[in-house]
């Protein structure tokens, strides 16, 4: 069995975002980076399956981006992936989901993977498209938003999360792509010995130009903060004073403090 997991590196969402010089994405100055939250669940699920299947199984992690994505690749290797592919691309952020999916599919089609794991969406772009597009490009079966995953006898049993807590169960023949939702599992923390071991694992570097053959299908024309709705009060300062102010507002504006 061959497994692939796709991980994206995204900024810490508590960062302050400012438009870049082209005004179509964020400027990268002063940002801290981490693994896309949804992809942590994807890596964990892939590693669990890798453990279930044992030595006959190989798990590859793939990430597209500049050198800094080496950090998320190393994390996935330390969590238990066997080898890695870094698709080197200085302008991954400028590519649309169709191009990103084409790059992944372009690499994967030579490799005959059985199962590909992705996150349900990326936190920064949030298109929720790449995983499904990869499946379409490769002709794989696909299910999205998994909160349950089991594999036995060549069949995946996928539990999809629907609205209002309802779930839908489907059986998928492999080869398949599954996109992982928050809460699918509890992602592990890499242990020190595994971090050391990961340093010896292979990271293949491939320039993006070798894999990308597609033009974008959509363009971002502007990146900006939301229009302020107004009305809300913003309170800052000393905690003691803040408490006084909030209690005064509660007495004035609500009926909960009599």
């Amino acid at each position, binding site marked *: 069995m061959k497994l692939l997991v796709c991980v994206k590196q995204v900024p810490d969402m508590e960062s302050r975002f400012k438009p870049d010089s082209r005004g179509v994405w964020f400027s990268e100055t002063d940002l801290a980076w981490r693994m896309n939250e949804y992809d942590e669940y994807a890596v964990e699920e892939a590693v669990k399956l890798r453990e279930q299947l044992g030595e006959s199984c190989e798990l590859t992690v793939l990430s597209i981006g500049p050198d800094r994505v080496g950090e998320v690749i190393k994390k996935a290797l330390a969590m238990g992936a066997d080898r890695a592919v870094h698709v080197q691309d200085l302008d991954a952020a400028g590519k649309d989901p169709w191009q990103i999916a084409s790059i992944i599919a372009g690499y994967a089609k030579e490799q005959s993977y059985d199962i590909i794991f992705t996150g349900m969406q990326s936190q920064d772009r949030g298109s929720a498209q790449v995983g499904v597009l990869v499946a379409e490009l490769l002709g794989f079966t696909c299910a999205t938003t998994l909160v349950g995953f089991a594999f036995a006898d060549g069949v995946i049993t996928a539990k999809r999360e629907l*609205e209002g807590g*309802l779930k839908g169960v489907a059986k998928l023949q492999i080869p398949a792509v599954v996109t992982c939702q928050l809460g699918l599992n509890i992602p592990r923390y890499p242990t020190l010995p595994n971090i050391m071991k990961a340093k010896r694992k292979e990271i293949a570097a491939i320039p993006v130009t070798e894999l990308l053959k597609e033009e974008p299908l*959509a363009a971002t024309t502007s990146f900006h903060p*939301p229009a302020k709705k107004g009305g809300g*009060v913003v309170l800052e300062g000393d*905690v*003691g004073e803040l408490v*006084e102010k909030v209690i005064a*507002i509660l007495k004035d504006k609500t009926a909960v*403090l009599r």
Partner: protein
Amino acid sequence: MKTLLIGEYREGRLLESTYELLGFAQALGADSSLFIVAREDQLPAFAGKLYLADAAAAGEYNPDLHRELIFQAVEQEQPDYIVFLHSSYGWDLAPRVAAKLKIAQVSEISAITAGEFEVGCCNAKMRRSVKPATEKAVLTIQAGAFPVLQPGGSPQIRKLTASLSSNLEFVGYEPAEAKDVDLAKAEVIVTAGRGIGKKENVPVIHALAKALGGELGASRPVVDAGWVEHSHQVGTTGQTVSPKLYIACGVSGAIQHLAGMKKSDFIIAINKDKDAPIGEVADVLVVADVMQFVPAMTAKLGR
């Protein structure tokens, strides 16, 4: 301009959210026809053209077959835009349609400004304007962003059938977990978000809820991490609440959380990040460390 709207049907019933698609088409100033896999006795109140496939034959979740049926409707209708809700049905099916037609998809549209589509990004903190580079495009719209428009009337039905073998077999639904706390009845809800830092801090948030005679709420990561039980979760995959007072502690304000609480009468958010999107719905945004502010407030109320 022509839109083909993809309605939704589940567990034998038409979903109300289908009417948000009509609200979107109106905002776009487009003519619309509707596609739906449903039962004939569950048709939407809409006087236009309705491409209908029978749910008994096509199944409620059968993306390969539904994609095929949508193609048939697209062939006949030649729409400029094929519009889905950004829901578990829509985000699953939309990219399949877009890929097969090799056209752009714009996901989770929350507004139309100057002919361009506005979508949220960076966990809803920022916005992007997006323009398809292809003549036709697939669009998904954010739940709750466009008005519900129920035009009434009966549709002109065009029946569609297709058969196809699929490597995906839908087994069935699993009901939501029973909830032991009915947050919908609470007058005050104090919610713990990931910003509280650790499980050990949950009682601090709970204490403020108790001091105000209310219940403890939780955001999804707090539930996923096992800090608080699922029955306390607020949001699209938890409960929808509208208390007199909602206090969000260390909650960023993702759209799926806002969907569950934005109708609260009065909203206070405590967040160390002044730009957190919860500020868009909050009546009061207190910029502070939640673990300093909350205990101080509880203490003050106790006096």
